[in-house]
């Protein structure tokens, strides 16, 4: 996927005026937060589960090498193979190699954000292998030549009409306008692909060290058909997804669906432990796990380590006022919303992604709903500090921050400045008490009026109050 994160401001401006996108984003805001809240209300232990999940993730990260070694050993015992990939390029080549060994022509795919991260589809196409996305949302996007704008609801930016058009054009069938009929058509089309595929690629929500199992969590059942029917199953996942035991996986599963879709549990939670057993009648003959690092091991031991707790539930973006206003594509790469604003700079570099950790109102809602209690606003602030240290911040902002820092460390000057600025603003506001144009603040006043300061400054009020108290 082409990186467009440096264009965040322009993309966001366009997104805000895109009527269709705004309509589609309305579905997100009307759905996810309410459903999550209802599911959380039915689980009185939810907050205690979150505390345990945070602590368990911290334990895992402190012993990450050990759990990964155990996982690898168990996969091999189960008849599978583990491939370690330091970079996205390593991962692409490894997967291509496995496909080539199978003389694969078509590959079915379950939903996987890691394969988006490593740009797998394009690479396979270039090398003569046809990847077929089978998750309904991903399938719609593939027909349109589009990319996911959300990590669990990839086609959230589209409306019914867009899906209807795409199916009509690609399936060469009469145009359908009923979502149920559209889904039935996709089901029919993909049935043939599931059977024809030589290789099935899925992601994994967790990797279980105790048993060498990978698990996928889905509602459609496409992931299961993807991994059951072809001769070869490749799991593409990342190193931080390892958990110690089935019990530990269960702790995260109790949080995942409730935080994501507000379901009590997703329809299909499927463990895969190796290849087909001697007398089994179906299942893949070859089982591969491709473990992608792509910058994650660099986060261990840094101020960003806490981000490695993320279980990809999407609650942070579902509750984010910025995501809700501009949608996922504005972020310009694979992972949008608050979790993306922390991960993207790590993966594509802060030089390209500097605008993302700045696209935050610091409202804290993301941290409030995170099932593993990642302090996302703090982590975004760390990236902003790095941006400043590396002199990536625009000159006007640096100058502004510098001036403010000077004023803030000289109280007399600060008071003088703030009281005169507040007087001046009241003057500018006139009768209506609002300013419609303010120099250096057009980002605010272009879209709404700036209310004028109503009373006295904090220091003035404080002094008046002290006087009052001394009197009485």
């Amino acid at each position: 996927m082409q990186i467009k994160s440096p264009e965040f401001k322009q993309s966001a401006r366009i997104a805000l005026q895109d009527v269709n996108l705004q309509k589609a984003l309305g579905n997100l805001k009307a759905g996810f937060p309410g459903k999550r809240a209802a599911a959380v209300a039915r689980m009185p232990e939810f907050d205690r589960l979150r505390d345990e999940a945070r602590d368990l993730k911290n334990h895992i990260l402190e012993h990450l090498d050990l759990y990964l070694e155990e996982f690898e050993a168990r996969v091999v015992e189960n008849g599978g193979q583990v491939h370690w990939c330091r970079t996205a390029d390593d991962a692409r080549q490894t997967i291509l190699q496995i496909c080539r060994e199978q003389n694969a022509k078509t590959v079915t795919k379950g939903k996987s954000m890691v394969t988006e991260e490593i740009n797998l589809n394009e690479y396979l196409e270039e090398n003569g292998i046809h990847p077929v996305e089978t998750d309904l949302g991903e399938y719609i996007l593939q027909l349109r030549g589009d990319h996911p704008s959300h990590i669990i609801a990839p086609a959230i930016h589209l409306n019914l009409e867009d899906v209807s058009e795409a199916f009509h054009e690609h399936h060469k069938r009469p145009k359908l306008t009923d979502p149920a009929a559209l889904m039935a058509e996709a089901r029919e089309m993909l049935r043939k692909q599931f059977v024809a595929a030589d290789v099935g690629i899925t992601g994994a929500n967790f990797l279980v060290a105790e048993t060498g199992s990978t698990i996928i969590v889905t509602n459609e059942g496409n992931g299961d058909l993807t991994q059951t029917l072809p001769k070869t199953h490749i799991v593409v996942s990342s190193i931080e997804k390892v958990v110690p035991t089935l019990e530990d996986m269960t702790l995260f599963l109790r949080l995942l669906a409730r935080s994501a879709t507000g379901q009590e549990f997703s329809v299909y939670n499927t463990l895969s432990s190796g290849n087909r057993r001697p007398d089994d009648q179906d299942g893949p003959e070859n089982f591969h796990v491709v473990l992608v690092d792509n910058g994650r091991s660099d986060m261990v031991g840094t101020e960003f380590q806490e981000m490695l707790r993320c279980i990809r539930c999407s609650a942070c973006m579902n509750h984010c006022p910025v995501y809700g206003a501009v949608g996922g594509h504005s972020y310009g790469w694979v992972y949008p919303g608050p979790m993306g604003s922390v991960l993207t700079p790590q993966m594509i570099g802060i030089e390209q992604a500097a605008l993302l950790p700045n696209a935050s109102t610091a409202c804290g809602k993301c941290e409030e709903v995170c099932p593993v209690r990642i302090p996302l606003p703090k982590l975004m602030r760390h990236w902003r500090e790095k941006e400043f240290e590396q002199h990536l911040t625009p000159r006007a902002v640096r100058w502004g921050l510098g001036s403010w820092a000077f004023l803030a460390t000289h109280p007399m000057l600060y008071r003088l400045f703030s009281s005169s600025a507040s007087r001046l603003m009241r003057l500018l506001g006139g009768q209506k008490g609002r300013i419609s144009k303010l120099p250096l603040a057009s980002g605010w006043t272009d879209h709404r009026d700036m209310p004028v300061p109503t009373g006295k400054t904090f220091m003035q009020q404080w002094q008046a109050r002290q006087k009052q108290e001394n009197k009485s």
Partner: protein
Amino acid sequence: MSSRAEIFANIRHGLRRSEATDAQREAVQHRLQQHPRNLIPARGQQAPEAQVELFIRMAQEAAAEVVTLENIEQLPEAVADTLESKGQHELILASDETLTALGWAAVHERIRCHQRVGQVGDEASLTLALVGIAETGTLMLYSRPDSPTTLNFLPDTHLVVLQRKDIVGVYEDGWDRLRSLCSGRLPRTVNLITGPSRSADIEQKLQMGAHGPRQLVIYLIG
């Protein structure tokens, strides 16, 4: 240096140690071998009868149909009724003896039974659940020679037999059952199934029957 070596070196560098200490290794081995339970929700720790009720309620909430039968001998008749109501006549049976030994001959005029893997176009399949998990109305099934996985996903209607005595409170009880059943190594796949297939990928409006079975019927026996 290989990717693997580089990744491990990087992790250890981040953790500010080379090899793990004996104490750290012991902590990890202890967790893996003892697999301690984490916090268990109260709803999964009720008396057996309450668990059965909870299982039925949660399964129905997830849009599964629940049919209660006094004994497994009633199954062929009940299955024939179910399929008839859905206009279906073909049934693919898991070749488990518990199922195949039943009196299917008595209903042979209403349904045709086969024993094989699932195929595209199959109308209905019948398989056995290891346990039912009350906390979310979830079925646990696992792959083995006489229960191919394709039967759980390809047919339009998935019929599952569950013994009332096999309803447990929480997933952890299911893992224990699985461990005692398959010493040392898990079956190739374990399927936790909660209701029929669905998707909300078009405008976030929930539609039933995406790629897996459109309908899930649970026969609760005993």
